[in-house]
């Protein structure tokens, strides 16, 4: 056997060990080997922690389930909100005013009115719906077709649907226009249709804020759950930590597996949240479809898109990492060999 001290020095240089702080980083080979070691270490910890977690499947699942449920709630609400926005999205943009014309106003009078209205700068377009068309549409959509057949005459008025230009959003301006239209002799009722959509938007903005607050709170809960789990893991592996410190492990080496465990918990929780949300949507799909049919709509629920899924998984992982980082920072320093 050759002199072990000589061997040690030789292999040191070969390994690019960071121990030799001044020497190791001088050669390019040293740096690349040290970098290689760095990635090897991380890859090892990444896989090893997954193995460790899978050896305690029940305990791991409990933690992952808590995180998953906590993440699924804001994610699910977000998806529902998204669907709601999509549902009313068709009406987004310009407001429209429905002018119900007085009975006895014939089509040529109505067309004259249309031409007059077109001169106003706020108005983008006008559609004339004759009483016959209105009746047809009503028969088609309402489901009262046969009952309508019993009527002697068409009870519906002619309607002018006035679409405002997109940049006309000032409520005062719209109100003034509405007043003008109401004063016209042909008009029975002038009704601003978009008021309720705007209220709905305001409501949804509020719900959106609520989801954000909920997500923050539950994110904090995930942080605490992971932190506590990692704290327990640190305590149960106290001996191992002491021994590895005794034989020259750096703080980073000891920290690493705990950080990765935390990240795995978070990613696992994110994945579970994804499954829970998709499952819930699947369960809702049929009732929503039935409801949409009643409204003669082809609306179908949209699930999590790729972007949201990525955010859910990545966010879960980050929360897990952060939670374990907090726990490790607090508890690892206390463990020193003596």
């Amino acid at each position, binding site marked *: *056997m*050759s*002199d*072990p*001290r000589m*061997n*040690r020095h030789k*292999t040191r240089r070969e*390994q690019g*060990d*960071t*121990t030799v702080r001044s020497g190791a980083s001088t050669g390019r080979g040293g740096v690349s080997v040290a970098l290689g*070691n*760095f990635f*090897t*270490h991380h890859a*090892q910890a990444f896989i090893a922690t997954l193995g460790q977690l899978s050896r305690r499947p029940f305990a791991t699942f409990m933690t992952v389930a808590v995180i998953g449920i906590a993440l699924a709630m804001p994610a699910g609400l977000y998806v529902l909100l998204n669907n709601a926005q999509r549902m009313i999205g068709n009406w987004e943009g310009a407001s429209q005013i429905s002018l119900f014309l007085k009975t006895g106003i014939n089509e040529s009078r109505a067309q004259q009115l249309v031409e007059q209205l077109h001169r106003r700068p706020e108005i983008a377009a006008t559609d004339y719906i004759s009483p016959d068309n209105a009746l047809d549409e009503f028969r088609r959509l309402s489901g009262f077709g046969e009952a309508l057949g019993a009527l002697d005459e068409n009870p519906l008025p002619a309607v002018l649907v006035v679409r405002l230009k997109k940049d006309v959003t000032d409520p005062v301006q719209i109100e003034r226009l509405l007043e003008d239209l109401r004063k016209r002799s042909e008009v029975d009722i002038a009704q601003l249709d978009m008021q309720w959509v705007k209220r709905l938007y305001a409501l949804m903005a509020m719900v959106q804020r609520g989801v954000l607050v909920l997500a923050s709170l539950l994110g904090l809960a995930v942080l605490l759950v992971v932190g506590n789990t990692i704290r327990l893991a640190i305590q149960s592996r106290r*001996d*191992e930590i*002491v*021994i*590895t*410190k*005794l*034989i*020259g*492990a*750096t*703080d980073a*080496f000891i920290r690493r597996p705990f950080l990765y465990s935390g990240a795995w918990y978070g990613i696992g929780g994110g994945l579970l949240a994804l499954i829970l949300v998709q499952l819930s949507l699947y369960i809702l799909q049929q009732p929503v479809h039935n409801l949409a049919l009643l409204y003669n709509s082809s609306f179908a629920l949209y699930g999590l898109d790729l972007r949201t899924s990525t955010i859910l998984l990545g966010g879960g992982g980050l929360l897990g990492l952060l939670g374990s980082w907090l726990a490790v920072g607090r508890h690892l320093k206390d463990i020193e*060999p*003596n």
Partner: protein
Amino acid sequence: MIRFTNVSKRYEGGYEALNDVSFHLTPGEIAFVTGHSGAGKSTLLKLIALLERPTNGQVIVNGQNLAKLGRGAIPYHRRNIGVIFQDHRLLFDRTVFDNVALPLIIAGYGPAETAKRVRAALDKVGLLSKEKAYPITLSGGEQQRVGIARAVVNRPALLLADEPTGNLDPEMSWEVMKIFREFNEVGVTVLIASHNIDLIGRMQSRVLRLDHGRYIGEIAATRSFV
């Protein structure tokens, strides 16, 4: 290799574990530290491995003044030292192989190099056949030899052993001592804390004596106890 200059260690509460200790150990030496229990043997080893810091005085190991090593440098300092404990300090949830491989994994060796060195170290302590066994299935002497394999696998220039034969019968103890001597013969500096007077006598090497934390000189190797 190791130089203590007027080293004192006082613990909180006033207990003085070491008092004004000075000695020098040259590279390639093998020596014992002896004394009654509580004489300061363990403290002396702890100061070398930086498990403790001295209250006064200077400790130089391998040319490095330990007072100048900050917290971040301690792990790298410990990698140069193989430490063997009376209670072995093995990890019972992993195999003999994995226990011995730990220092190499910490130092960042690749799997092939690690396997090669672990087997060489296990071969050296005569436990190559037990690499897949768990420590709990081994005898006390075998566990201690696993501990030694782990201490030498990184090929440190300095071996410290704290009562390595404390729990072993005389025959096992002598086997362990022979292993230490083999390492010493290839150039490793070895410092062993022990109160086993009989064993120390048989080894015929330098003996540093401590009494109530004071260094009270050496016993020449030839003036054996036998």
